[in-house]
């Protein structure tokens, strides 16, 4: 169980892992995630299931090395085992034939957008994808998204590939061109999802965002992941992770994402400093 069968570096510090987890692979639906721990004293972190092969009994996880846990995960190789892995968690994404759907993936959020894109395509939607990253070295799943989409736009903040600018620039342009959009799905940094929601709100385009708050258990047990949606408190792990982007309080989400900024730094300092820090 939980054996890694393949590791691939998708971009600088972004890795794909195929993990043997037959029960999760069998039950998984797009939009769902797992919680994992990489060692005995480790933290529980959520990662979206980017793909699953129920025949092979594997799931695909994509992780960007940002903190201690993801950096330790990045050290794992084929044949290593992930000590604790549980899922699939969260509500599956809403997949129907909506018409023309714009799907936006920002940074490693594209890993989350990808399974949604495939499901939406399979359901008969026409798909316009916008994939963005800080620079071309950080772009992931571009080929996969291209195959899945009817149109693909690439943006980079530094202009090293595709449109020089943000994913929202392309979205704005599509709206200005009066392209018919029945639904927008936006997955990426909170600030990006907020910007997307602000653009689509005046045009009343249904916008679904996938939230990424801090979680502990991921089963609805702690409330660490609480978000405010339409003035109501929701737990992203069981009520989400997808919500109506026009109803989400993004400022609250961003503030809560900063809860452990100090501790994240401490966790990566050399041990001596750690002791002093305590």
């Amino acid at each position, binding site marked *: 169980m939980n054996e890694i069968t393949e590791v691939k570096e998708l971009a600088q510090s972004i890795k794909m892992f195929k993990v043997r987890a037959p*029960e*999760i692979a069998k*039950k998984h639906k797009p939009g769902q995630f797992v919680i994992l*721990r990489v060692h005995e*004293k*480790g*933290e*529980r972190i959520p990662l979206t299931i980017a793909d699953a092969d129920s025949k092979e009994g594997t799931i695909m996880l994509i992780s960007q090395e940002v903190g*201690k*846990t993801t950096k330790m995960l990045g050290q794992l190789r084929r044949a290593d085992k992930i*000590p*604790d*892995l*549980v*899922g*699939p*968690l969260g509500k599956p994404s809403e997949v129907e034939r909506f018409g023309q759907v714009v799907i936006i993936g920002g940074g490693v959020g594209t890993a989350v957008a990808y399974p949604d894109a495939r499901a939406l395509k399979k359901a008969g939607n026409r798909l316009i994808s916008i994939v963005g990253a800080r620079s071309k070295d950080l772009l992931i799943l571009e080929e996969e998204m291209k195959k899945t989409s009817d149109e693909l736009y690439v943006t980079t903040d530094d202009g090293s590939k595709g449109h020089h600018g943000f994913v929202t620039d392309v979205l704005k342009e599509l709206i200005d061109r009066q392209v018919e959009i029945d639904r927008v799905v936006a997955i990426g940094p909170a600030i990006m999802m907020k910007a997307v929601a602000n653009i689509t709100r005046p045009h009343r385009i249904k916008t679904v965002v996938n939230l990424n708050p801090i979680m*502990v*258990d991921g*089963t*609805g*047990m*702690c*409330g*660490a992941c*609480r*978000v*405010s949606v339409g003035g109501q*408190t929701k737990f992203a792990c*069981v009520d989400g992770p997808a919500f109506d982007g026009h109803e989400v309080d993004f*400022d*609250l989400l961003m*503030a*809560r994402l*900063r*809860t*452990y900024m100090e*501790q*994240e730094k*401490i*966790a990566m*300092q050399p041990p001596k400093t*750690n002791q002093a*820090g*305590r």
Partner: protein
Amino acid sequence: MAAKPSEKLLRRVPVRRLPPEVRRRTFDEVSLGYNEEEAIAEAGRCLKCPSPFCIKGCPVEIEIPAFIECIKKGDFSGAIAKLKEKNNLPGICGRVCPQELQCEAECIFGKRGAPIAIGALERFAADYELKKGVEIPEKAKSTGKRVAVVGSGPAGLTAAGDLAKLGHDITIFEALHLPGGVLVYGIPEFRLPKSIVKAEVEYVRRLGVEVKTNVIIGRTLTVEDLFESGCDAVFIGSGAGSPWFMRVPGENLNGIYSANEFLTRCNLMKAYAFPEYDTPVHSGKRVAVIGGGNAAMDAARTALRLGGEEIRIIYRRSRDEMPARAEEVRNAEEEGVTLELLANPTRYLGSKEGWVERVECLKMELGSPDESGRRRPVPMKGSEYLTPIDLGVVAIGAGPNPLIAQTTEGLKVGDDERFIVDEQGKTSRDRIWAAGDVASPEGTVIHAMGNAKKAALAIHNHLAKRASA
């Protein structure tokens, strides 16, 4: 009734505890328990009432005078054997049961003096066995029947242990990465050392029970999957894992935790040892814990141990209505936690960056009794006052996780989202039983165990009937 006790007999052999000034900053267990001499002396007080009331006060009906008699004679192995006839988890119960409301409340000594320290004696016997090496009782012949147990908390461990002893093939499914449920994520080390939980889970394992962690019933597998894989019955003891919030303004500010999150970070994830352990937790200098139950006491005392300076428990009723175990309220107060009674938060105020800075409370007074029989707190108009805080913990209770109810057809729940069960814990669905917080509101380890025992027996009878049919 037995002869009139002497004055000396009316007094209990005190249980030694770490002094408050020592324990305020350590997660080590507060209660030190009895040594052999103390245990024998305390056991010697028991009058062996011919028709003992204490047994009636025990939800699992331990033959209390019999185990105490063994201790009195120095037969500690006999004492633990007697305890384990009815209770698979004596080391846990001896520590966390509200004995003052149960067995000890019924003790005849309580009328004029201190009741026998039944809890401390139970713990003594359990700890004696753990040191000596745990014996596994003989099990019934294998029946070939399979039962799935959902959840490895007090209810699940009890049902699993009882059913395994009766010869059934038991698998426990636990959602978290460690077995024990609330015993590992909720109750702190200083009240219930995790080594004790581990040992008692190990005992249940050695009875032949398989424990599968990291499986969420309702997600990884459904109850239907369990039946399809060949289970003959399912027992659900998934607890009350879904925390309640008051839904007042500012409750989502940074620095406000549910008791579940605060305690899970500290107990299950060992955040108090950050950065040795990877999971962080925020400690505060000025901490407000909302609620009057055991989780509130646990959270307050944990906050203190994390370095808190001014810890207050804000509770809307008075001391008499507090649901927490009396000993824990006393422990908390001795350690310097302040009880702010008859007060209720109305909102939290925070900084520009979204961190909690103050809590606004309203003073309350007690009105007429409500449906729980306790006097209802009534707000006093215009009595709002502000208190500066940098950490808040909401410990007002928790409800069942809805995942199993949502994914199992025909499993009926009540308005409180708990499963509707009969006296034996039978749910509205054929072959499914439930007990513990997921099925009843008492909220104590021992009630969960008592109801789980009844359900286990009902499952056994059901399986026996089917085998003979």
